[in-house]
């Protein structure tokens, strides 16, 4: 058996449980209609603009996501280097330090430009 197959078995079990729970809740619970109950949780007025379709959110989240992608890719490069560290030796270390230095430049730049501030 492939080493990845057990994940799918556990995944099927978990998915089955979650899907069953989500579906069964519609049958076991009571249903008492009340128009106000189905409004968004707010002061009683529908939110404008509607979150779906017209929603706005601070651009900071977008910046954070971009930073996440940069650092996540850095991680993807760091991991194989770390695992093979003893085989790669000094050359690997110097190469990786140069790579980290390359990434430190935009990081410091964004820090100084206030890209990491939240207020």
């Amino acid at each position, binding site marked *: *058996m*492939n*080493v*990845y*197959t*057990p*994940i799918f*078995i*556990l*995944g099927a*079990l*978990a*998915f089955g*449980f*979650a*899907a069953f*729970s*989500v579906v*069964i*809740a*519609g049958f*076991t*619970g*009571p*249903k008492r209609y009340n128009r106000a*109950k*189905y*409004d*968004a*949780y*707010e002061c009683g007025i529908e*939110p404008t603009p*509607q*979150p*779906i379709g017209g*929603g706005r*959110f601070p651009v900071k989240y977008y910046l*954070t*996501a971009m*930073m*996440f992608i940069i*650092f*996540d890719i850095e*991680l993807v490069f*760091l*991991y194989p280097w*770390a*695992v*093979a*560290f*003893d085989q790669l*030796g*000094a050359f690997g*270390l110097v190469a990786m*330090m140069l790579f*980290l230095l390359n990434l430190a430049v935009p990081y410091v730049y964004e820090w100084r430009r206030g890209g*990491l*501030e*939240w*207020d």
Partner: protein
Amino acid sequence: MTGGQFGLFGSDPWWLVIGKAVAIFGLLVLLTLFTIWWERRVVSRMQNRIGPNRVGPFGLLQSLMDGFKLAFKEEVIPKAAHVGVYWIAPVISATAAFIAFAVIPFGPTVSVFGVETPLQLTDFPVSVLYVLAIASIGVYGLVLAGWSSGSTYPLLGGLRSTAQVISYEIAMGLSFVAVFIYAGSMSTSQIVLAQQPIWFAVILLPSFLIYVTSMVGETNRAPFDLPEAEGELVGGFHTEYSSLKFAMFFLAEYINMVTVSALATTLFLGGYLAPWPLSLWDGANTGWFPVLWWVLKVQLFIFVFIWLRGTLPRLRYDQFMKFGWKVLIPVALIWIVIVSIARLFRTDVALTNTELLVVGAVSIAVLLAAAWLLQVRSDRRADKRAQAEEDHARRASEVLTAASTGHPVPPLPGQRFEYTPRRSTVTVPGSTAPADSTEAVAPPQEDRDA
């Protein structure tokens, strides 16, 4: 490794694989029920209360009963919701939480009904990477739940959770690098075995501390539970969820807590290996005993989670993001550089004492130069700050006239300029700015807290 096999992994008979999967599933559900009860009891004790003690012995069945109760509650789906995504989000959250546990080792190889098998569902050369990948999939559950509710608070809460989880995931991932360097592997079972003489928590203490901090942020737990800051965001991304859909998010949160605790145990506390005094006894690392050590170590982390919740107030969001991006990530990166250089010097370079002294002297000189440069810079800033304070003091001594404010409302007779310290100009206690001018215009920071 042939035919998709990795050691003993992949050679289990099918009934054993299904048995293990069911066992892990059951263990996670039980651990969740237990942890909810345990958390409520411990937090109660910390707050001089008793906590749930009515349902079952010591109230142990309380969380199970709560689960049943949720199943019989009405399901309210807001009319603005995007129904398809709204339904799928809790399923994604719960499924991702469960399957991250597939690579956590519970114990060494044991014999189950005559079959030799490791106490771990599966393992492969990149299993820690797999846990990180699944954690990222779990984020989809949060952001989709927040967006699809069609309501403002969940949208903001979902975005906050997402920003928080992805920010702390970086620090978390960086803290693993030192472990991989020392273990030479990304497979969880081999990382555990690499800690045979000494745990990584001891030799890689900074990594461990960074991981423990970021795991609290990653799971959205107090003091980093900003997505659920009820004063600002009601319930966060699950505000519009009710009944068993809400229960799925709750389940996912607690399973994630157990997962990060188990990962901390695996990577830093020697996994299922017996702790020090017990490890002197040869039998401690054989048979089914290691499962006990594993459970105890995981429970230790879960207790720390609860302890933090009972002790610390919630951080402000900007402080929280600042801490993640400006403290944890740079510290983790610098630590990686230090660890890798030290490791290389220990394994590859045979230095004489003279060379070692030269290297030490050079690095001390570099550090001194850096410290001097930083001091010059902070002196210059302090001068600038003192200048600003002086300006404010001068303005505060003048009685305001209608012409001097520029504000539509004219000042009251005898009104003076009131100086409110701003973040950029505020005097940090203990800095070099002249104390007399600040005292006159701005009350020191401590007084305002009192």
